[in-house]
């Protein structure tokens, strides 16, 4: 994936975009955007009228200066070109991304195995000849020829080309880390891979197609908006077309002036129809997809991105998303008659050789609390007892002295086997710890035939920093967060409270997850979730927005409608924001576009009819210099506003997690009221400039 970021009008993108803007003047391209097509036809018509007027024909009878028609015609062409430019610029960014993806599709050769095992004979074939079900052998330093599933072997794979993450990842047969992506490279060892896709259907192919198709496939909401824009265009078409007979009638009854010229009517039409939003609409869509790509999320369709904006329930895995992956020791709770320092000392000794993160954290805590340094293991004549699934405890033997730590039941068994007793007060402490959502580890020692429980170490799930604030933001956005965990209810409840999630699903099984999603959906909610394992696939398929981790299995990736290349479960929140941003940009620009019409009416209507009814100049509230400069200023404003809003269309309206009402109030103030006021100022300014230059 390209790591290159472009500035807004990066010459590298802007220059080809200018050429593309002209290339897009082809009617076949223009036809796809009905509103801009009207402007396009208007440009052609006014151009023809100008040529006609030069010969003293047609509009020459009603327009004194053919130069005015030319000026209108030119600015209408600019309007079309500016809209083309916006689209081309957005597409340029996507194309740059697609080009870097295409770089992955190297013409590689693959060792195709005759039978799916290492000893089988193989033959070299081009990667493009591989079909679904073929089995290939990939050795160190070779590129993986196609997407597939590891069926044998373990290898470290460099996936940086896809994810941008330079650290190699392990891919092995079985389990959740068995899927490999074409175009990535094996760094060490070998793997045998069963190809799971046909050429042209690979992950990279889909990514390229998605990026390139972004401009062609309209999302449902985009279609609905286009319908509205077309409806407005039809109405305004009727408004301007009928204005000619009205004007002719008025001239007849007033006995003064000339009927309004076709040029002015076309200018009025173009100013009234929602060109601003129509010109930027596809750019907004392309830019939205492209923002997703920059966040390293690949959506299978624009529809999915849009749906992300609507999500109101987020299912989040506890581990990795809400909590750091590992538990950490947070307190020593000594048994009666034991000091905390004694317990810490024993716990530290028992953990010195324990390389698990939990073990390390006990040593760290002992150091923090009692300045206990790590001791020289050899000097102590220590013999470490490692954790086994049968004993379910670990510890150390220091000569006669045995120290053990482990789950309460395991230690209870140990103590009772040694002839000691597990005191009730310790059980109470164990329960307390569990109730707090932490994991209790009990420490016991046996020396000289005397066995006693020293106390309890509290291992705490560490909730990620800032996650609580993130959830509060989500709540303000109206999104409910649900934590999904395999923990028991007590533990889950405690962590849920600490992290500030709205709800939790404890002792989650894949079936329970699926059921939960269906339940939310039947209540009319849209559910988003992340997942990576094969057992997540049914839930992913059921969820409305499903983000599969790229590290996940092929099944998970296929069930989801987005893939997060960084495999970062919190990314879901960004996905939601991007979806919302795309809709907000569209809505805000639509409002702005319609609100602009008020000022344009005030500019054009007095100017168009002042020859028939001089009293109409009372409506020239902006005090525009002359009728022709008024009309020209409105047309120029209409064209330039597209260019001014390109950055907004590409970057998107800033999303802040506020309640719906606050957000609406703010955006209405900015784009609604702003849309009413801005053109008054803009048109006046342009008019002053035109008058100063003596152009009209």
């Amino acid at each position, binding site marked *: 994936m390209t790591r290159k970021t472009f500035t807004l009008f990066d010459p590298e993108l802007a220059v080809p975009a200018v050429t593309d803007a002209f290339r897009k003047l082809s009617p076949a391209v223009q036809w796809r955007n009905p509103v801009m097509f009207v402007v396009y036809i208007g440009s052609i018509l006014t151009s023809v009228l100008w040529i006609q007027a030069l010969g003293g024909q047609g509009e020459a009878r009603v327009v004194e200066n053919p130069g005015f028609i030319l000026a209108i015609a030119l600015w209408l062409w600019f309007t079309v070109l500016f809209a083309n430019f916006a689209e081309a610029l957005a597409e340029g960014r996507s194309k740059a991304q697609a080009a870097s993806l295409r770089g992955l599709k190297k013409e590689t050769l693959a060792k195709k195995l005759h039978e799916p095992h290492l000893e089988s004979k193989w033959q070299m074939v081009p990667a493009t000849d591989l079909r679904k079900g073929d089995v290939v052998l990939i050795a160190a330093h070779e590129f993986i020829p196609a997407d597939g599933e590891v069926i044998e072997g373990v290898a470290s794979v460099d996936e940086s080309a896809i994810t941008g993450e330079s650290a190699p990842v392990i891919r092995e047969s079985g389990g959740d880390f068995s899927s490999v992506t074409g175009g990535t490279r094996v760094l060490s060892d070998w793997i045998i891979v069963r190809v799971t896709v046909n050429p042209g259907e690979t992950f990279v192919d889909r990514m390229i197609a998605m990026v390139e198709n972004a401009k062609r496939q309209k999302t*449902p*909401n985009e279609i*609905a908006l286009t*319908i*509205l824009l*077309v*409806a407005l265009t*039809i*109405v*305004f078409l*009727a*408004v*301007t*077309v*009928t*204005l000619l*007979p*009205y*004007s*002719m*009638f*008025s001239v007849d*009854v007033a006995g003064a002036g000339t009927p309004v010229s076709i040029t002015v009517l076309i200018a*009025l039409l173009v100013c009234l129809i929602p060109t601003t939003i129509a010109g930027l609409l596809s750019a907004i869509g392309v830019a939205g997809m492209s923002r997703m790509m920059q966040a390293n999320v690949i959506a299978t369709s624009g529809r999915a991105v*849009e*749906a992300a*904006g*609507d999500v*109101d329930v987020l299912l989040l895995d506890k581990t990795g998303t809400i909590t750091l992956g590992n538990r950490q020791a947070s307190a020593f709770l000594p048994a009666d008659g034991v000091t905390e320092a004694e317990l810490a000392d024993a716990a530290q000794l028992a953990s010195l050789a324990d390389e698990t993160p939990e073990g390390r954290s006990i040593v760290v805590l002992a150091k923090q609390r009692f300045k206990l340094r790590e001791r020289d293991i050899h000097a102590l004549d220590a013999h470490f007892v490692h954790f086994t699934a049968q004993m379910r405890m670990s510890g150390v033997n220091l000569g006669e002295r045995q120290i053990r730590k482990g789950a309460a039941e395991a230690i209870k068994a140990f103590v009772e086997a040694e002839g000691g007793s597990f005191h009730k007060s310790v059980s109470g402490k164990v329960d307390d710890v569990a109730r707090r959502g932490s994991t209790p580890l009990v420490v016991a020692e046996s020396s000289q035939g005397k066995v006693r429980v020293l106390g309890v170490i509290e291992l705490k799930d560490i909730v990620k920093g800032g996650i609580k604030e993130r959830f509060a933001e989500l*709540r303000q956005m*109206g999104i409910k967060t649900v934590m999904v965990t395999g923990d028991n209810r007590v533990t889950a409840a405690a962590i849920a409270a600490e992290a500030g999630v709205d709800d939790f699903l404890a002792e989650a099984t894949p079936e329970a997850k699926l059921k939960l999603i269906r339940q939310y959906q039947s*209540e*009319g909610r*849209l559910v988003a979730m992340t997942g990576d394992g094969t057992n997540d696939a049914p839930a992913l398929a059921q969820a409305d927005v499903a983000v599969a981790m790229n590290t996940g299995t092929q099944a998970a990736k296929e069930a989801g409608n987005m893939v997060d290349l960084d495999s970062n479960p919190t990314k879901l929140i960004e996905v939601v924001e991007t*979806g*919302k941003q795309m*809709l*907000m940009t*569209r*809505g805000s620009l*639509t*409002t702005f576009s*319609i*609100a602009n*019409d*008020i000022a344009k*009416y005030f500019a054009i*209507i007095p100017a168009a009819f002042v020859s028939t*009814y001089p*009293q109409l100049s*009372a*409506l020239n509230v902006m005090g525009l210099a002359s009728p022709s400069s008024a009309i020209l200023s409105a047309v120029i404003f209409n064209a330039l506003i597209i260019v001014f809003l390109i950055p907004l269309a590409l970057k998107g309206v800033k*999303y802040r997690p506020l309640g*719906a*009402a606050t*957000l*609406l109030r703010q955006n*209405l103030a900015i*784009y*609604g009221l702003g849309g009413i006021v801005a053109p008054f100022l803009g048109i006046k300014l342009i008019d002053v400039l035109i008058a100063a230059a003596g152009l009209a």
Partner: protein
Amino acid sequence: MNSHAWELLVLYLTVLLLTVKPMGIYLAMVMEGEFAFVRKTERPLYRLCGIRAEEEMGWLKYTFAILLFNALGVLAVYALQRLQAWLPLNPQGMTNVSPDSAFNTAVSFASNTNWQGYGGESTMSYLTQMLALTVQNFLSAATGIVVVIALIRGFARHTAASIGNAWVDLTRITLYVLLPISIVYAVFLVGQGSIQNFDAYKDVTTMEVTKYDTPKLDAAGQLVKNEKGVVVTEPTEAKTQTLAMGPVASQEAIKMLGTNGGGFFNANSAHPFENPTPLSNFVQMLSISLIPGALCFTFGRMVGDTRQGWAVLAAMTILFIGLAIAAMAFEQQANPLLTQLGVDPALGNMEGKEARFGIAESGLFATITTSASCGAVIAMHDSFMPLGGLIPLIGMHLGEVVFGGVGTGLYGMLVFAILAVFISGLMIGRTPEYLGKKIETYEMKMTSIAILVTPLLVLVGTAIAVIAADGRAGIANPGAHGFSEILYAFSSAANNNGSAFAGLSANTPFYNTLLGLAMWFGRFGVIVPVLAIAGSLAAKKRLAVTEGTLPTHSPLFVVLLVGIVLLVGLLNYVPALALGPVIEQLMLFAAH
């Protein structure tokens, strides 16, 4: 605006808003069959007509039923007018109505427009007035109400295939709402002085001898002009006057209650037999908005959140107050032309006003009747000040959604609400939803059609009329006012209002045909997409309300809705209005 005008406006709104809740509850309970007597009473009727009342209809079937029902209504009204000379209850011996006028009137009464190209007392027999026009007053009102009820069901139901049974809905609204209220109302009007009889017209000797000049006609019936080209007149005296009679009160009641507006007499509610007293006038104004206002509450109740209904009502009320104040204030202005002739400017613009009612009542009535689809009048809108006449035009151009016609006002407003929700939903970053229903491509398509139809009919119709010689021939006043007259006629027809800038001579084949078409398509060009929306919404799942959902009952949404109605409703008409009332006002005051 003087204090009387303020008092009148406040009193009117207070009484109206007090009726909203009880009436709204009653409407909802009747339409949902919550009263036991409702189900019991109607059963024999259904058996008689072979209606399977339990069978609900999908939107297509419902629409077909409504269209068929109204098409039959058009045929019946047309036939009765064309045959009235040979039918009973015709003491004045009225002849059969001309085909184009009969077509126009038939469509007009079936579409709840009640545009009248004819004069009632000089055209229609009592049988036609009662059997054709009064019956259609009931049925067209019922049609409007059942359509909005079907739309409300679309919002209220989820994952449902049907939106109700059209025949049952039509029966219930007529039988339990329109009929009983009309009976009481008619008795009240008779008490106030309205007439209700089948008598022949009466010649009465007037208390005062009226003297006036009539133009002299030659043998060929042409005006006689002197050598200067001025029409020669001769003084005339009148000692008697013919008083038209008829079953007035019974037609008057439903004319107002059903927002029909077609007067028994040509002078409509300015006629003392239609509207005898200030009290009857107040009740008439109230009865126009009674059902439209109450339906907002019905809506809230049926969708299970009365706040939604109040919000829509609030938006309507805000728009109404603005329009009413403007109309009354503009009419309080003195016409500079009359001031020049020595009329006291403090009187305001009394031209064309019924002296029994005055300026404030006339301004308020004009606002109510045109912001609803009623069209009854107590003053000549043609004689309003230019901007005073702009207000009724605006009321109609907004789509008559300010309280509006019975049913039509609310469904028109809900279409605007869908549009408002669509735009504002996008602005907060959610695909839009209203009352838990997602607004998607199909709804936007139908909403667009519903919003497009009337402006297209008005603008194109006006354009045809101002070009065509037949169209220009009907204009009574020169200049921009003539343009206003034509614009008003098409605005009134396409929006199914029925009031007129009466200066236009519209009882010609040209106008009868063109306006007839505008009325039919203005009515059903909106009803069909509205029912389509109802069907599509009913089939959808209902989404849960969360904090991310845009609240559609908040003051902010009310303001937004008002803004959308004004913006979308008016932007289409700005150029036309500029060339009509606006320039008229500018010229009037610039010249004097």
